[in-house]
């Protein structure tokens, strides 16, 4: 089958998709977007977390056919997504309005989704990358070790901070409880999210919860 959807602000079309191919597989193997990771492919680890119409989902559990006409943001598009959000007062996809949180049914028009596009960077060194606050915080806090859990955690943490810019430690733990990390002991991940939240509140003082 053929599936049309928007990924990181760009219209995409996947051909010859098998029944039962997951969104994760289509992103990684058909679209050349391996940023979303394949650690369990059974919805247990969160490494494959992407936003589908603004809502974080395990892309390994989403059948590719389900995303027809919808809008996906992966870690590859996170920096640009966050930049657009900052410019548009807290929303990049149109999904953070009244529809936020209604899994799968948030209404993002294709037009909204295409208001932004992720930009390529140097894939050798990552130079030229403009990072989102949460990405920068993960680097600065030492929250990246092997990094396999990182893309999923970033997408999940970014969305959590969008909903709750001033989370307590218990809020952070609850918000990220669907994402496993085997390397860090999570302490530095906590540090990173706190750091991103603090920087966010320092730079956008007027923006309340």
């Amino acid at each position: 089958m053929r599936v049309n959807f928007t990924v990181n602000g760009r219209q995409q079309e996947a051909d010859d998709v098998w029944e039962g191919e997951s969104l994760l597989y289509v992103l990684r193997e058909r679209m050349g977007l391996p940023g979303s990771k394949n650690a369990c492919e059974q919805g247990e680890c969160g490494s494959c977390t992407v936003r589908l119409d603004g809502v974080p989902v395990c892309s390994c559990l989403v059948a590719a056919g389900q995303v027809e006409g919808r809008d996906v943001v992966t870690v590859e598009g996170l920096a640009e997504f966050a930049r657009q959000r900052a410019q548009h007062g807290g929303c990049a996809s149109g999904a953070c309005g009244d529809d936020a949180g209604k899994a799968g049914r948030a209404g993002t028009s294709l037009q909204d989704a295409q208001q932004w596009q992720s930009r390529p960077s140097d894939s050798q060194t990552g130079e030229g990358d403009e990072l989102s606050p949460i990405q920068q915080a993960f680097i600065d806090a030492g929250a990246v070790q092997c990094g396999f859990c990182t893309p999923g955690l970033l997408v999940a943490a970014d969305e959590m901070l969008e909903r709750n810019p001033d989370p307590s430690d218990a809020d952070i733990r609850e918000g990220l409880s669907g994402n496993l990390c085997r390397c860090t002991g999570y302490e530095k991940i906590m540090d990173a999210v706190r750091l991103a939240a603090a920087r966010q509140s320092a730079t956008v003082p007027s923006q309340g919860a």
Partner: protein
Amino acid sequence: MADTRTTGIPFNVTQGSKTKGGIGESTLRPDGTLKVTGEFAYSSDMWHEDMLWGQILRSPVAHAEILSIDTGEALATPGVYAVLTYDDLPTDVKNYGLEIQDTPVLAHGKVRHHGEPVAIVAADHPETARRAAAKIKVEYRELPVITDEASATAPDAILVHEGRDDHHIGHVPHPNIVHRQPIVRGNAEEAAKKADFVVKGEYYFGMQDQAFLGPESGLAVPSEDGGVDLYVATQWLHSDLKQIAPVLGLPEDKVRMTLSGVGGAFGGREDLSMQIHACLLALRTGKPVKIVYNRFESFFGHVHRHPARLYYEHGATKDGKLTHMKCKIVLDGGAYASASPAVVGNASSLSVGPYVIDDVDIEAIALYSNNPPCGAMRGFGAVQACFAYEAQMDKLADKVGMDRVAFRQLNAMEQGTLLPTGQPVDSPAPVAELLRRVQAMPLPMERQWESSEGSDVRQLPGGLSNTTHGEGVVRGVGYAVGIKNVGFSEGFDDYSTAKVRMEVINGEAVATVHTAMAEVGQGGITVHAQIARTELGVGQVTIHPADTQVGSAGSTSASRQTYVTGGAVKNACELVREKVLEIGRRKKGTYHPAWATAELLLEGGKVVTDGGEVLADLVDVLEGEVVELEEEWRHRPTVPFDLVTGQGNGHVQYSFAAHRAVVEVDTELGLVKVIELACAQDVGKALNPLSVVGQIQGGTLQGMGIAVMEEIVVDPKTAKVRNPSFTDYLLPTILDTPTIPVDVLELADDHAPYGLRGIGEAPTLSSTPAVLAAIRNATGLELDRTPVRPEHLTGTGPA
């Protein structure tokens, strides 16, 4: 040198500035940006035009004769390019293994464990490959399974490996025992008579999985010369190469290996997984072949931590001095040897822990069985022993009537203490101090769910499930400390190689570091850059991809990489520096007498005297020159332990960590919440403090995992794995994880580069017994196994 230093010369002298990003600083990872943007290429991300997907068919039973394999229907499936079995292997070499080559590439005649590879398939879509594999018909005749010491050593036991001819067979009491290491020092029998108190204990340590997140995966690309290029996630490229090439029937230089991104390892990538299979399929089909395990396969595709039964006896006088120790440690190695012999060496030689005990009688063995193969995992044999001896210390302290920490401190080893192998610990051994530090940390608040911020049920055992509001919840505190060896022991030639190059690129002096070290997330590449900056005074350091075009770096395990490959990088840098200074003397030596007389350093992109005067810009010295040197580096040699007495200087270095655990237990439901897990560790010298703390926290959490949730459950009747998934094998989530405050001590080890100590494993040792001790303290229960499950706490199930 101070008096020969030339000062006051008016020309060409300014004050040098230190190079930024050198050792001791918390420099950030060079791969950090790529990892947060999703652009870092892990082994499962490899892609090649026209590539095929490989799939492995695995045995559904643990022990059976293979009567027949029919691949016809699989091969006839559209999209399938190859189906290979044992009969298709190209040479007489059909087995591989780290030390003993007992592991078949594909099962022949027999399968020895659940999930053993039987056949492999290559197809144009992963689902096609899976479906084709399912069409292969294998006829098994099941055999009785060997699952424990009794069944392995029974007089009529079936041999897991018939006709063993490895070098351990001569000294093991039964062919179903891989290796046995006794250690006898002093006279435990005699010394026991001086004991006022004796405690005995039997402990069980469950089978833990490394559970790295990045699945076993890689891409094999056939090359025109008949060889193969393999991009793979591993811990030791050269060790893989040594095992792969003979099976393929290729010379080593025709198998070119490049490290691709590694999503964690923890020992689970020391053994081969999909490497040979991908190469075989690529060579057979003439096409690139990618294999990616799913999580289910990953549980079958790598070795686990040895489960262990440990029998201990300790004695103490009434003033609390340890008199003697006797122990027997039975490790279950599963169907293939893997690293079992070395695990036995560690478990036995470190079985007394960081304590002074002169009279010991020790025996450690590893079994062959039909359970899943076990091998390397973080802590390597020392973990299981630590769990048992620390439980014993608590029991004994209670009997003597002493404070548990004070009891440990009274018996703590120090620099100069002899290990049971007779080897002196010849570097700082701050055991009592680490315990003091971890005890001195402030305790977390009691009943924090009732804190001023309003009651928060998420702080309680059971958390969001809202199972309690604090009734029936009790707190406990426990302590533990451990000792881990660093590096490969017992005479292993544990060297590393580094190639360092210096040149001017775009008007800047640049260093390139090339090693075959596997960066598995630990941050080795970060410290290599730091070392090069410190030694060569350059800001810009490029880390060359790890591959087999440079000499071996040894394994990224045993906490050894920063020590050994870091040492090699340091050494190579020193030689490069000498060469650079030679060039400087040649080109610039006439301008300033200090070139000939002073001690010269490279700092901040300049050649400076040890007084800080600048003699030249590195760019001017290096212009038009390239300095490149490859250098091997070795630490002090070790010897194997004597096979009868266990005596011998078998270890290189030690690292020490202590933990204090605070837990809250819902005694009604048997739910445990670990509130805090504080750690104090001596790291010798923290080359990168941020990474050091990250390693300690990660290791601590893996130790907590085995204490309260992680276990591969193997059916004792069938030897089948019951929980090969992240649904059933429970890993700690961020909700299960306590705060992990870390106190880092830096007592230099004079024998090591910069005085550093390996750090990765020690925190995994004491974390488990500390949590167990805290749960015992909270509940008053004995608890002699890991992991502790609700039924153990409520008395509703078997222990």
